């Protein structure tokens, strides 16, 4: 009897190891990238996926490029620079956390092993403020989007290189959670992120063409014409959830941080090019 149980236990371990080696994050990532390469062979070089829907819409691209010549996010970068350089009551500033010019975009999101959670840049900004006795900023727009725009701008050209450390199973669990989120249908209209940004990417919902998810995390924050202002990635997540009549999650809560971890890992190798302008 004892032997049988041991054998069963052994069998289970063997199974989980082989399952992990069959479909680990790295295999996921390659399949994900391949999916978009096959679906949009016209996007060349592959790095152009950083331009979202414009990478697949030559007709809209020209107008977008002319908008980018006088970028509507320029004011936000300037405002962000002021906030970034502002001296706190204790004499320090955001520079003490993020260096002279805040060009740290490539460090986020990352797995924080001590705390067992995904760290994002916006969360790190607020933690820096609070650690220095300053008031935290709201996550979706305004001052936060401005600081983030300034830091992203100074980080342009850095490459997404998210790691899922193999020595901490909680990191893989966070990744799996984000992945499940991406593929799970939800809301009254019963949509998964993948329904729009994978299975029907490039197709039109009315006149709106849906962007490929490969490249989604590169260009934040964005100035969106529809918002008439800046917004962060988690604001966009919440907007897409609203559209499918699902309850949005909290910006910078665990769900959206894990989702950002997953989609960023999927886009590894692409360049950060935020901030950007969008319709």
């Amino acid at each position, binding site marked *: 009897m004892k032997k049988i149980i041991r054998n069963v236990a052994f069998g289970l371990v063997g199974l989980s190891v082989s399952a992990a080696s069959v479909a680990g994050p790295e295999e996921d990532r390659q399949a994900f990238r391949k999916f978009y390469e096959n679906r949009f062979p016209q996007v060349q070089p592959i790095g152009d996926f950083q331009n979202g829907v414009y990478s697949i819409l030559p007709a809209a691209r020209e107008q977008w490029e002319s908008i980018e010549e006088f970028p509507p996010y320029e004011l936000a970068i300037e405002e962000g620079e002021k906030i970034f350089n502002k001296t706190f009551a204790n004499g320090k500033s955001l520079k003490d956390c993020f260096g002279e010019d805040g060009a740290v975009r490539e460090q986020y999101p990352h797995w924080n092993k001590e705390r067992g959670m995904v760290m994002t840049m916006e969360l790190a900004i607020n933690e820096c403020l609070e650690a220095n006795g300053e008031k935290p900023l709201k996550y979706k727009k305004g001052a936060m989007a401005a600081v983030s725009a300034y830091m992203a701008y100074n980080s342009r050209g850095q490459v997404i290189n998210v790691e899922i450390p193999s020595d901490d199973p909680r990191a893989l669990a966070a990744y799996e959670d984000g992945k499940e989120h991406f593929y799970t249908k939800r809301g*009254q*209209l019963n*949509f998964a992120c993948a329904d*729009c940004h994978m*299975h*029907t990417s490039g197709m039109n*919902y*009315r*006149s*709106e063409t849906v962007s490929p998810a490969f490249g989604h995390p590169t260009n934040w924050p964005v100035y969106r014409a529809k918002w008439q202002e800046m917004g962060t990635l988690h604001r966009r997540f919440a907007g897409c959830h609203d559209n499918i009549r699902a309850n949005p999650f909290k910006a910078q809560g665990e769900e959206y941080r894990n989702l950002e971890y997953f989609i960023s890992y999927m886009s590894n190798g692409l360049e950060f090019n935020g901030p950007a302008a969008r319709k």
Partner: protein
Amino acid sequence: MKGQLLTAILASALVAPLASAADADAIAKGKEIAWHRQKGNCLTCHMVEGAEMPGNVGPPLVAMKARYPNKADLRAQIWDPTARNPMTSMPPFGKNHILSEEELDLVVEYVHSL
């Protein structure tokens, strides 16, 4: 609403000229619901005759009588398209209460007329 529809059905069984007027009424009401952005919003994904800038996520809704000789099948597809294809991106209009049963009946009348 239900009463109206019942009248329409009874009428179509009994008096032909009256029936077509009632049908036309149901079709017009169904069209309004199908086109309404907060209701059916079908044009987001489907081309239908007369639509400007329809989406192309789903197939064009044409020749519906030929494709759905049986109205009940058409109703089933709109009530819960995931029954036939769990991966579909078409919302389950009846199952998820996006439309009421009465609204769905009217939409079926309209779509069947396309």
